[in-house]
């Protein structure tokens, strides 16, 4: 059962999905391409650094971004921040998997606070990467827009939250339409919160 309460799909047709993969290691790009093709993806673009990822993202409307962390110029974290908060990001809500050789808690928190949807430590297994992708397909987490953060809700729905609730006010819940655009009355406020946090340079300037 998905977290949404819906029964999970029995089969997944991923042929029409667009996937953008960023990894500076050529071997890893080959591994990921083969693995994703095996899952059923047919439209995959791979790039070798964060700057290329940001440029490509402007024109290739990815349904899913899988990015390494350690790259240059621009690392994976820069990519995440740019996608989430750059004024010219064509889709700040796109699911992003950070797939990295880093596995320490400090980095997981840093990635989460930059707005990744899912953090996956390498080495990968066939089952684990697929499970993460399916989790993203089945469970569309709401997005949080506050002064200090724009990204998927960092609180897991199925975990009890310990400690004080530091949210200063009850959040306003808003339903976005099929085009993912917030209701017009609040769209401006969302944009201010999204882009006002001092994010990385706009995607187009890279």
């Amino acid at each position, binding site marked *: 059962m998905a977290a949404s309460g819906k029964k999970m799909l029995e*089969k*997944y*047709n991923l042929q029409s999905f667009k996937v953008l993969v960023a990894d500076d290691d050529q071997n*890893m790009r080959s591994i990921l391409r*083969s693995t994703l093709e095996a899952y059923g993806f047919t439209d995959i673009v791979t790039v070798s650094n964060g700057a290329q990822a940001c440029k490509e993202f402007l024109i290739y409307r990815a349904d899913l971004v899988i990015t390494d962390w*350690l790259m240059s110029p621009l690392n994976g974290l820069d990519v995440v921040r740019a996608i989430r908060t750059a004024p010219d990001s064509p889709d700040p809500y796109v699911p992003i998997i950070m797939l990295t050789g880093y596995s320490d808690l400090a980095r997981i928190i840093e990635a989460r606070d930059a707005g990744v949807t899912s953090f996956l430590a390498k*080495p990968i297994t066939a089952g684990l990467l697929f499970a993460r992708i399916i989790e993203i397909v089945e469970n569309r987490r*709401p997005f949080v827009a*506050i002064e200090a953060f724009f990204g998927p809700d960092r609180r897991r729905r199925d975990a009890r939250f310990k400690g004080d609730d530091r949210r200063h006010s009850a959040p306003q819940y808003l339903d976005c339409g099929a085009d993912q655009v917030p209701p017009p009355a609040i769209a401006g406020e*969302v944009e201010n919160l999204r882009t006002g946090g001092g994010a990385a340079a706009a995607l187009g300037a890279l």
Partner: protein
Amino acid sequence: MSLLLNLPNVLREKADQPGGLRPEEAIERARVALVDFRDTYKEWVAADVKRLKAESERILAAPERSQARVERLYRIAHEMRGQATTFGLPLLTEIGNYLCRFVEKMGVPRDRDLEILDLHVDAMRLVVAEGGAPDGPATSDMMTGLRAIAESKDRSTGAA
């Protein structure tokens, strides 16, 4: 102000089309694809470990100019640790983790630190040459030693 935006799940609609794969089918296909990579991976890892050793030798030959070379060595080891277990070399991932952790906590390296790095590199070369887990007590001693180095570094830098 805090806003919680409920987004439509367009990806689920996209995936819910005829002609899809069951999860177990997709995973099995990917598993086979990764197995098919194993021979290619042997070539990659042999080349990587050669580059690693070359970098380490340059570092030891000129320790005063080591910073950029240590960064290159770190990046090679970082990539290797992220792939090795996928292709049946978990020991290589483990040693790669120790090496990377050591570099992260190293600060300005002393000559002894650079020798310890080279020790890790030789351990990785041994694993690659043996094609996996070298047998025998020598390997066990080697891993015990590397773990002890990592833990000692953690203690000296106050890491958990």
